[in-house]
């Protein structure tokens, strides 16, 4: 399993691996927002948690098809499916690799991008915490979507259409956790619900993703 993890991470970090692209996309989205809504910091700082969350979510979305695409194309996925390692474990490892190479960098970049949206230093902690707790769910849910569309040639838009509605609860609780923390309100409810979604997804979705992969590999 470790070998698979390291291999996936190395593939992602390669030149064409898309590692920097998600970060760059995150930056671009955050930069575009002020052009769309005006430069007034009062407004921007109010919507900053939401913008950062939506930006991170979209950046995550872009890299999802890479989870299975390369292995599907060269037949590695067929080998992995018949290997002694259960496919659910393979899927989980791939989700984890995706999170480390896409989700985690977004989490670390978020406070810096938040500065562009008027975020104050005491808010950094809440942005990072909410994204840290939520991005694993995004990777796991996204893996399910990637498994559904693995065989399709130009499945990118379909993947977005399938995955984005599934992201709604994570987005709601993640952004709300950040917003409440920043203003000093009690964060118990959104935090526990966000954690609930993340843990439940990590525990259960790999089974669905593996089942879907087996269907697609038939």
């Amino acid at each position, binding site marked *: 399993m470790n070998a698979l993890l390291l291999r996936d991470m190395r593939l992602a970090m390669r030149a064409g691996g898309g590692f920097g692209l998600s970060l760059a996309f995150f930056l671009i989205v955050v930069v575009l927002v002020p052009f769309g809504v005006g430069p007034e910091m009062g407004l921007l700082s109010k919507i900053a948690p939401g913008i950062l969350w939506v930006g991170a979510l979209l950046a995550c979305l872009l890299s999802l098809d890479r989870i299975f695409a390369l292995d599907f194309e060269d037949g590695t996925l067929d080998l992995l499916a018949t290997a002694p390692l259960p496919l659910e474990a393979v899927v989980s490892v791939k989700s984890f690799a995706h999170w480390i190479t896409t989700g985690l960098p977004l989490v670390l970049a978020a406070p810096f991008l938040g500065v562009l949206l008027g975020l104050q230093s005491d808010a950094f902690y809440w942005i990072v915490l909410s994204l840290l707790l939520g991005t694993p769910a995004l990777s796991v849910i996204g893996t399910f979507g990637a498994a559904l569309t693995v065989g399709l040639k130009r499945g990118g838009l379909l993947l977005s259409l*399938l995955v984005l*509605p599934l992201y*709604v609860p994570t987005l709601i609780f993640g952004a709300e956790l950040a917003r409440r923390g920043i203003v000093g309100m009690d964060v118990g409810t*959104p935090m526990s*619900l966000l954690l609930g979604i993340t843990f439940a997804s990590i525990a259960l979705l790999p089974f669905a993703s593996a089942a879907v992969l087996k*269907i697609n590999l*038939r």
Partner: protein
Amino acid sequence: MSLWEYANPVKFLSFTGKIVPWFAAGAALFIAVGLYWGYFLTPDDYKQGSTVKIIYLHVPAALIAINAWFMMLVASLIWLIRRHHVSALAARAAAPIGIVMTLITLITGALWGQPMWGTWWAWDPRLTSFLILFLFYLGYVALWAAIDNPDTAADLTSVLCMVGSIFAVMSRYAVLFWNQGLHQGASLSLDKEKNVADVFYQPLLMSITGFVLLFVALVLIGTRTEIRIRRASALLARERG
């Protein structure tokens, strides 16, 4: 005679061919009676004025929109467990109906909301949940369309329907939290039990019955279409191969 006998496409076609006209006629009758009664023969609501008449389209459409998805879920499970093709095709047939019903709900809701709340749209939990349901329907239909192999498509869309259902329920609660947690907005929901007096309730029941019959008729028609399309493809493939 077990219901499972009708899982056989030929039996299904012959049986439904006889019952569809009844459902269609019943649907037309109940909808016509419900709408006529509701539109012409009921008074205005003291709070909502004549807009209460929108209820006879809005509520039935909303009920079908939700229950169509539920029916798709059951049909998907039957396909995954018992591999009855008719079940998978029925789920596929129900989706466009659900989409149209969701659209009707959203549009009539917006037209109703404008004079009542002063806005075409509000991120009220109920409306928002319907918008999310609309997106789930779109994804489901898009996935069916994208996959060539019919059995693979049936399998994938069934899993999507199941996972989607769980997330749809989660979203419903998340959205409730999201709106009520933030604002104490005015209650925008139309609670059938609370707000709807008898004089409105009876034509509403007519209309709801009509919509349910319409849903059944259309799902049967749609499933028959899908069966025929598949049989045609199978015949052509056999000739080629």
